[in-house]
C-alpha cells in the first residue's frame, strides 16, 4: 500500500549530491512530490527534505540506496505523525476582482492567510501551513477566478523524536576516526 513518506537526507557539501539522490527515485520509478534543499544546522552539512508516495518496503530500499552514495551521511524516512511540517505558498490575485467581490477577502481571512501587497493591478497573498491548507485556499480563490499566479514550496520539517540521529552518527564517526 502506498503512503506519503518524508525522507530526510543529510550530505556533505559536495557538488552533485542532489543529482545522485534524485537518480535513486527515478531508477525505482518513484515520483518525488516535493523537494527542499538547504544548509542544515550542522556547518558543512546539507539537508534535503523529500516527499513521495510509495510502499514501506520501497521507502526502505530508497533509504539504503541513498545512503549508499559516498557523500551522503544519513537518510531516514518518516510519516506525517513523526514530524512537524510546513509548506508556504504565494498567490497573486487581481485587485479589481478583490475589491468587487467581498468574498475574496473573507476567504483570505477564513484561511488565516496574509495579504502582503496591494497595488491597483494585483495583490499578493501569503499562506503557510500543510499541503491541504494551502490547496484549500487556492481552490476557494480559484473558484472565484481571481488567481493569476500560484506558487507552493516544498515541505520543510523537523522531527518529533527526542533523539538527534545525525548528531549521533557524526559523534560515532568522530570516535572511529580517533581510535
Amino acid at each position, binding site marked *: 500500500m502506498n503512503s506519503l513518506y518524508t525522507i530526510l537526507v543529510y550530505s556533505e557539501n559536495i557538488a552533485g549530491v542532489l543529482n545522485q539522490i534524485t537518480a535513486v527515485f527515478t531508477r525505482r520509478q518513484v515520483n518525488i512530490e516535493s523537494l527542499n534543499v538547504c544548509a542544515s544546522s550542522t556547518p558543512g552539512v546539507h539537508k534535503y527534505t523529500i516527499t513521495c508516495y510509495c510502499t514501506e518496503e520501497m521507502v526502505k530500499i530508497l533509504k539504503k540506496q541513498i545512503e549508499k552514495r*559516498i557523500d551522503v551521511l544519513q537518510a531516514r524516512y518518516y510519516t506525517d505523525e513523526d514530524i512537524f511540517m510546513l509548506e508556504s505558498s504565494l498567490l497573486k490575485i487581481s485587485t479589481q476582482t478583490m475589491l468587487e467581490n467581498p468574498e475574496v477577502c473573507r476567504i483570505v481571512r477564513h484561511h488565516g492567510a496574509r495579504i502582503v501587497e496591494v497595488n491597483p493591478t494585483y495583490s499578493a497573498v501569503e499562506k503557510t501551513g500543510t499541503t491541504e491548507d494551502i490547496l484549500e485556499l487556492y481552490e476557494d480563490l480559484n473558484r472565484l477566478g481571481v488567481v493569476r499566479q500560484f506558487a507552493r514550496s516544498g515541505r520543510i520539517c523537523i522531527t518529533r523524536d527526542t533523539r538527534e540521529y545525525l548528531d549521533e552518527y557524526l559523534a560515532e*564517526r568522530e570516535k572511529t*576516526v580517533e581510535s
Partner: protein
Amino acid sequence: MKQRITGAEALMRSLSAEGVKTIFGYPGGSIMPVYDALYDYTRGEKKAFDHILVRHEQGATHAAEGYARVSGEVGVCIVTSGPGATNTLTGVADAMLDSTPIVVIAGQVPISALGTDFFQEVDLVGVAQPISKWSYQIRHAEDIAWAVSRAFYIARSGRPGPVVLDFLKNAQTEMVDYAPEKVGFVRSYVPYPKLEMDAVQAAADLINGAKKPLALVGQGVELGNAQEELIAFLEKADIPAGRTMLGLSALPSTHPLNVGMLGMHGNYAVNMKEQECDVLIAIGMRFSDRVTGSLKTYAKQAKVIHLDIDKSEINKNVKTTVAVVADCKESLPAITALLKKGDHKEWRESFKPLDKKERAKVIEPAIHPKEGPLLMGEVVNTVAEATQGDAVLVTDVGQNQLFATRYFRYPKHRSICTSGGLGTMGYGMPAAIGATFGAPDRTVVCFMGDGGFQMCIEELGTIMEHQAPVKMILMNNNYLGNVRQWQDMFWQRRKSFTRMMNPCYELIAQGYGIPYEAVTDRKNLAAAVAKMLATKGPYILECAILEDDDVLPMTPPGKSIDEMQLELAPPPTPPVREGRPAE
C-alpha cells in the same frame, strides 16, 4: 616535506604512493600534461610504472578490471576527455555491477572552458555518477593528493567499485606545493559496518537447527579474502555450498562440499535444492535475477541468512530472516565459533541422484561427444584438463562464457574473470590482457565467441606489442550463439540477425604476428591445446564449433528455478505463413 611540482607530476606521486604499478591508458589532448609526466615515470631513474597502451579506452577499463580481479589490487586507467572518457563508460558500469575496484582518470577541458561545449568536452562526472561508486572533478592542483587518495580508498574498501576522476587540464599544469596524503576515513562512508553479535547469534541458531542447510557463495568471499574462513565455516556445520558465477573460485571446485554453480545455466541439483533447503545462507552474493529466477517462487520454504558488507543488498530482492551486515572475513569466523559440529550427510547425499541425472543427460554429451562437429563443452573440458591447477579463466559473454564457467575447474582462488552483472561482450580479450599483468606467473586462458572476439578485437595490437601471454580460444559457431539459442527456444526459431559472416581469423592472427592454429576435428583437439599451452606468449586457437549447440541445463527467463530444463522442450510449431514453403 613539500615540493613545488606540476599537477601532472603530483598525480604521478600520488599514484605511486597508492602502490600503483601498472597503468592501462590512451593519450589525447586534455591529458597531455599527464602523459608528458608519465614519460619520465615509466623509464630511467624515476621509473615507477609500466604503462600499457591499449587500442581503445574500453579495453583499458576491462584490462584494469582483469588486473584487479586476479591481483586484488586497484586497476588504473588514464584516458583523455570527451570520446576517451565516454569510451570508458562500459567498463565503469561493468566494474560497478561486478564490484571491481578500478580508478579511471580522464582528462578534462580547462576550468575556463567548462560548460562551453569546448572541443572534446563531456560532463563526465554527470554521466559517470549513476554507474560509479564515486565520481569527482579535480579542478585545481591542490586537490590532487586528497582526491587521488580518496579515490583509491573508496575503490578498494568495503564493497569495491569503480571511481572516476575528471582531471581538468589546468589542474594538470598548475604548480602545487605537493605533500602526499593518505585518506583512510571518509565521514559519510562506512565501508566496514560493525558486526552485530545479536545477528551472529541468530544466524548461528538458525544454522544449528537446520536439517537441510545450503550455502550460496559469492564473489564477496574473494573480495574479503575470506576463502579459508569460508571453508572452516562450511566444514564445521557440514553445509553444501553452491557458487555464483563470479564466486566460482571462492571455494575450490575440488572441495567435497562444493555442489556446483548457481543460476540459469548452473548445476541442476543445487538449483533444485535451493527450493528444498530449510536454511539458505547467502555469503557475499546479491541474489541476482540470473541466480534466483522468478522471485515469486524463489526459496519460499527457506529461512534466509544473508551475509553482506553492503546493507543495501539486504531485502533488495529476497526477504531475509537474519541479516549479518559486515565483512565476511569477520562475520564468518564469528558465526563459526557459535556453530555446533554438523552432520548433513543424508542431505548432501540427496544431491547425488540429481547430479547423476545432469551428468548423463547434459555433461557427458557436452564434454565427451562421440561424433559430429566440435562442441564448446569438450573444448573447455580439454583445456581445463590440460591446465589442471593453475590457470586463470577469462571469458567473454555468450554461450562461450556459460560453457567455459560450467566446465572449467577452479582449484585456486582468484581464478575467474567474467562479466557477470553487465554481460559485456568484448570484455574477454582486454580483461585477459589485464590478468596477465595482474598474475604474471599464471597461465591465462580466454574463451571467446566469434561475436565477442570482434568486439574488442583491436586489443590484439596490445597483445602483440607486449607479447601478453593470453591463450585465446576462439569458439567459432558462426552465430551470436546465445541470442540464437533464445530465438530457437522462445522466438519460434526466427533467427533475426544472429547469423554472422566471419573473417579469416588466421589472416588476422598473421597480421598481428600471433601464432594461430585451427581445430576442426576432435582427434586433433588435445594436441592443439597442448601445443598452445607449450607455446610462449600469446596464441589463438580457433575451434570450429557445432553451429546450433545449446547451453543446458537452462531455467527459462522469468521461470521458477525448479523449472530448470535438462533437455530442450520439443520445438514449438513454427507459425504457418501463407504462400511460403515451410523451412
